[in-house]
């Protein structure tokens, strides 16, 4: 079976961040390039943070999804240049994060609105959260704690 680039990219929509399973690697902006040559597929991905432990799982998942679809030769390359930034996250990805309960990054805003009640009356609890890419906030109105995907 032969696939074109678009078909491969659509297949890769199934690959999500194992720690934030609502967002695909394309939405997250870590899928950098797909090259297709006959039945040989090369996928470039880039880490969010250098020590992100999800990268090896994501690498395996990419191979798995493509192998299952009938692509036999898959190479996944880890590239670090140019360095990932949250600017590469798609608008769709940000919406999905918010719906999941994680405040998405917004470099244009100083306030981090609560993803649950929408209040802008929130405060930082800790610079570091449950994963390298998040910090911890709490909402002063609905009182819920929430994760914020840091601007990076």
């Amino acid at each position: 079976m032969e696939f074109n680039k678009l078909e491969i990219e659509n297949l890769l929509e199934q690959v999500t961040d194992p720690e934030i399973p609502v967002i695909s690697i394309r939405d997250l902006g870590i899928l950098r390039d797909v090259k297709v040559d006959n039945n040989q597929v090369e996928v470039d991905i880039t880490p969010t943070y250098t020590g992100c432990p999800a990268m090896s799982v994501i690498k395996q998942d990419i191979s798995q999804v493509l192998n299952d679809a009938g692509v036999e030769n898959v190479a996944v390359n880890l590239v670090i240049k140019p360095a990932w930034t949250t600017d590469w996250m798609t608008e769709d990805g940000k919406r999905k994060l918010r719906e999941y309960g994680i405040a998405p990054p917004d470099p244009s805003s100083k306030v981090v609105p609560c993803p649950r009640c929408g209040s802008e009356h929130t405060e930082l609890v800790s610079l570091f959260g449950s994963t390298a890419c998040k910090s911890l906030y709490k909402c002063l109105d609905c009182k819920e704690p929430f994760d914020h995907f840091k601007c990076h």
Partner: protein
Amino acid sequence: MENQLFNYIIQHADNCLILSHRLSEWCGHGPVLEQDIAMTNISLDLLGQARMLYDYAAKVQGEGKTEDDLAYLRDAWDFKNVQLVEMPNGDFGQTIMRQFLFDTFNVTFYRELMEVSNDAELIAIADKSLKEAQYHLKWSSEWMLRLGQGTEESHTRLQNAANLLMPYANEVVIPSEADKVAAETGYGVDLNNVKAERDQLIKEVITECELDASLDGFSHTGGKTGTHTEHLGYVLAEMQFLQRAYPGLEW
């Protein structure tokens, strides 16, 4: 002839790995949950930086070794990290002081490396790592101020940490042979420039904390040529145990 590019990369890879290990020792022991998580997050970032550097060092070495070989199968005298990063965690104040002294260097080093290096791989690693290092510095600076301007007890403990660690602060900006060759050849930084910028960052915070601490005193050296404090052996014994006991073991 010694491979000075390899030595240059290894110096900083070892800094990142050993400090990462030290911070990981706090896992489950942090004073509050949020700071336990902060220290292990920083540990993870530094491990990531170490991995990129080891990976590149292994390529430069050209002996078919991997990042794991370099981390797990070298002995204390092969490690070229500065002595600061192997110093024990002590209390939270001591960990913060050590982190602050390292972060100020890490930020200014990566920034300078990005600007002046003629080595594409080193520039990419510095570019990737800088934002992380800046975030670490924000955290450690805030804690310096919080402890330094906090209670009498927190101030005393931070002062004790300064007394212990200031003699280890300058080794990282004193050029080794590898540093000199790196600056001359153009892939590395001029440490004098890094020192000027770094010292400024340190002095501002030290002043605000009203600590009695100077960068002009005696400085320990030796780490960059493989002479370490007695602490490094214990770090390696724990970190390398599995690979030494079961060579080649994989997950």
